[in-house]
């Protein structure tokens, strides 16, 4: 048996000092970690339950932004009036994820840190550099329909499964981190995640012992926000491709734009290329097609997932057209 110990600290400082112990891991909603433990992919020897830390609030910030406590559950964030009116792309992304039951348990911090759904990551009989560094990538040359087309490496072609993080990427959210010494730092979400490179087992820039305490949403960018998730079935499935878009137009010209993709890369994929192709151009389909081409210029398919490149282009075009029309 793999025994583990469990504690439930009541404040963040105690939590971060507890996690310094070897084999220790935070657990919140447990919607991903418990599965991974049962499947022998994660084997912590000590669990620190942070789900009841006083970090569930969503607070107004003086600059007009919001601070979402790391333990706020996905359902609550999605239903928050301020989120719904000022950050609809985030609310839409959250409700498109998982199921009602899972959203009721899953925390904001945990959602950011969920692991890939690559089937080979879950199959301990298969090689996987993310699960077992150096053991190879079975998805390359295997069944890779859900895998990455951007930013992948020879070591890993897994995707990040979160919807929430894609919307947060378009919103330029910052992740607030607390370390064992009690110091707090903030990391912009695009810098928070790593590309796989040679070290796909390292997924974020989190330092050992750091705890996510909250997510800072800057004041909402101007324009219309939209999240569009494409998948085989109507609910309870990870995105094949998703797009978070924010588009602002003035007299038919795009004045500002944010574009992030989900389901295409090891991290939520902010497409600065697409944004550059949009800003200052007419809000019309030709522009969106240029942006889609720019976004996917470096995309590489692995066989089964080749269609994702065209699917991402088409989804972006449609999402931009829809956002621009009503902005």
């Amino acid at each position, binding site marked *: 048996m793999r025994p583990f110990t469990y504690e439930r600290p009541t404040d963040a400082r105690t939590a971060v000092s507890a996690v310094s112990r070897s084999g220790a891991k935070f657990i919140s909603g447990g919607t991903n970690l418990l599965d991974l433990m049962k499947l022998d992919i994660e084997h912590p020897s000590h669990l620190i339950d942070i789900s009841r830390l006083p970090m569930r609030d969503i607070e107004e910030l003086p600059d007009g932004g919001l601070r979402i406590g790391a333990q706020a559950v996905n359902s609550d964030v999605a239903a928050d009036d301020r989120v719904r009116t000022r950050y609809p792309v985030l609310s839409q992304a959250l409700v498109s994820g998982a199921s009602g039951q899972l959203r009721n348990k899953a925390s904001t911090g945990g959602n950011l840190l969920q692991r890939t759904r690559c089937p080979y990551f879950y199959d301990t009989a298969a090689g996987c550099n993310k699960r077992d560094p150096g053991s190879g990538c079975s998805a390359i*040359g295997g069944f890779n329909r859900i895998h990455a087309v951007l930013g992948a490496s020879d070591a890993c072609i897994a995707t990040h499964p979160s919807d929430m993080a894609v919307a947060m990427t378009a919103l330029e959210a910052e992740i607030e981190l607390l370390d064992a010494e009690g110091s707090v730092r903030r990391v912009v979400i695009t810098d928070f995640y790593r590309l796989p490179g040679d070290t796909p087992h390292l997924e974020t820039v989190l330092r050992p012992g750091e705890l996510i305490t909250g997510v800072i949403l800057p004041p909402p960018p101007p324009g219309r926000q939209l999240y569009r998730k494409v998948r085989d*079935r*109507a609910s309870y499935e990870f995105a094949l491709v998703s797009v978070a878009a924010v588009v602002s137009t003035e007299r038919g010209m795009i004045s500002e734009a944010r574009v992030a993709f989900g389901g295409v890369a090891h991290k939520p994929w902010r497409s600065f290329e697409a944004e550059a192709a949009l800003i200052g151009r007419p809000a019309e389909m030709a522009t969106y*097609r240029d942006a889609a081409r720019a976004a996917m210029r470096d995309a590489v398919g692995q066989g089964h997932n080749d269609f994702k490149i*065209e699917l991402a282009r088409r989804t972006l075009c449609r999402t931009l*057209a829809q956002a621009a029309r009503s902005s």
Partner: protein
Amino acid sequence: MIGQPVNRVDGPLKVSGRATYAYEYWDAGQPLYGCIVGATIGKGRITRIHTENAERAQGVRMVMTHQNVPVQGVRDESVQFEYWRAQPVLTGPDIHYHGEPVALVVAATFEQARAAADLLDVEYTVGRGRFAFAADDDEAYIPKVVNAGLPTDTAVGDFEAGFRAAAVRVDQRYTTPYEFSMPMEPHACLVEPRGEDLVVHVSSQIVDAAQTSVAATLRMAPERIHIVTPFVGGGFGSKLGVHAETILAALAARVLGQPVKVALTRQQIFQLVGMRPTSSQRVRLAAGRDGKLTAIAHDVTMHTNPDLEFAEQTAATTRSLYAAPHRLTSHRLTPLDLPRGADVRAPGEAPGLLAVESAVDELAHALGMDPIEVRIRNEPTVDPERDVPYSDRHLVDCLRDGARRFGWEHRPATPASLREGRWLVGYGMSAAIRGHFQGPTAVQVRLEADGTGVVRTDMTDIGTGTYTILTQVVADGLGLPADRVRVELGRSGLPTSWGSGGSWGAANSCAAAARACAALREKVLVAACGDADSPLHGRDPAGAHFGDGSVRIDGAEGASQALGEIVARHHPEGMEAQGEIRFMGDDPNYSDYSIHTYGAHFAEVGVDADTAEIRLRRMLGVFSVGRVLNPKTARSQLIGGMIWGAGAALEEEAVVDSRSGAFVNRDLAQYLVPVHADVPDVEAVILDGYDDKANLLGAKGVGELGICGAGAAVANAVFNATGLRVRDFPITIEKLLPGLPDVDA
């Protein structure tokens, strides 16, 4: 009560958690837990198993491998049906498919067993496995018979000549993937040694098969094996026979002399219970301009495990579906080193009709004719291959009634012509047909001295409603209120049935129960009318009516006596009678008539013009199944089948990694089946009917009919919406995307 939408009599037990399933018994005290260790290669040989670390682990009681497994019976092909044969496990060092059990680890707790299983170190030499299916494989061979003992090939007329001469031809190949039964309750077993006997709590569709198979495997007398399976959380064919979890639990319990339980994990279900074979189906249809078919051919190639042959009867119903003078059907098998093929809901009909009913839609399109009209024009008057009359064929009624209810007249005549915003909208339809089977079944009906009726048979209720319909039949048969009828199922020692499977369970057990009731009524009347102290004494039993727990003779002018009183006077221990029905092969109706159930499916889909996402908008099935025993449980069965059919058309596919032979998407997050949001509006309508050739109740099987053709209706709707015909199922985004127009403003 027959024909009434009675609520499930076992419903309150189930929703309150008081229905005990195989894995949950505690009567024999704390059981040990077994964890199955599967091979991590697809083909090869175990060279060494290091069990020491696992054996030393905390709580471990036993590690069973091929080196120490007790001697088992061998699979005996002279036994007619697979599910009654021995199913030996851990038979040697050879590995035949990925995930094949190589060990069972038994420990005091589940967690200990699972952790110790991880400590098992198995060394293999990896062999060269055949994992990739190709229809034109040189190794494809001709099986002697196909599933259910049906002929492998049939030929009528001169197909080639008939096909060549026709004005309009369709010649297409359709492929279907591996599919699994995924019951909510995983395959599970708890075995309790009791002296020399074994009490086997198992999730099983057929008690007799489980008993015979476990006994043959453990080389024990069948009467020493006591099967207990009162509640089964779904089977869909995958629990017709027992699997490794049952045999391993039984072996371990016997060796250890303690109760042992083993359940498959969801991932192991994708390895150890068999699956619907993948298929490649060539369908050729030829017709005149009038839409009348002149030639039909349905040629199927599918995979089989080389050691455990399974040939799904994929082309079998094509033999009875439409009239045409020139006909061919064939089945071929390609051996692959994968788990065995097995019965999965509507074996044969489900994938076969997906292909054939897509092809008929293609023919209608080529003819420029309404697809319903094409089907009506090819309605046969006799079974075209067996040359016998149909017992009770109402396919055309289903087509017409469905068309009216669905609003078929609104179907866009031209594909890709109806657009609603971003959605391309299309309508599709399909015919449904399924053979009705009858198997030997005995049911005992008792009357207790308190006037209670008791129904006893080893028939199972796999979530279908057996408890409820038997209650209804016996309530009617003995004139008792439903709450005075008790049904005992799912235990060896009770009168033997063919269990649940093939959609035969309801008709088999209810027809036998009706016979038992008739015999019991006879006994009651003989006893009462011959009893000088009875108010019924001397009256003519021909005028008897059973109702409200009494028997009345000669109506209001006559006399009546309570059933309980009659039983108490004459047989205080209870009165009983047995009813039986025979194997269909011994019943002339089944050779003199072609006995099927029928239906028509209608679907409306939306396809996102930009992303190719397909969403079912509504679906209707109209069915003819003879007499309906309970419209509520029947509807549930049919709707379940229709939803599965929609999933087979659009989502469901188990993918093999052709390098390792492992199924890749081994959980229900990756192996997609419809969720509620996928099936917003699904309705099933059942036509009134009575098939007097099927049995004395006029009732036929329902469960599997719902899936038959359902997927084709959805696929045909996708064609109608987009003008794109996808013949490789399931129809997923990547298969439609290249054919869609550019994203427009």
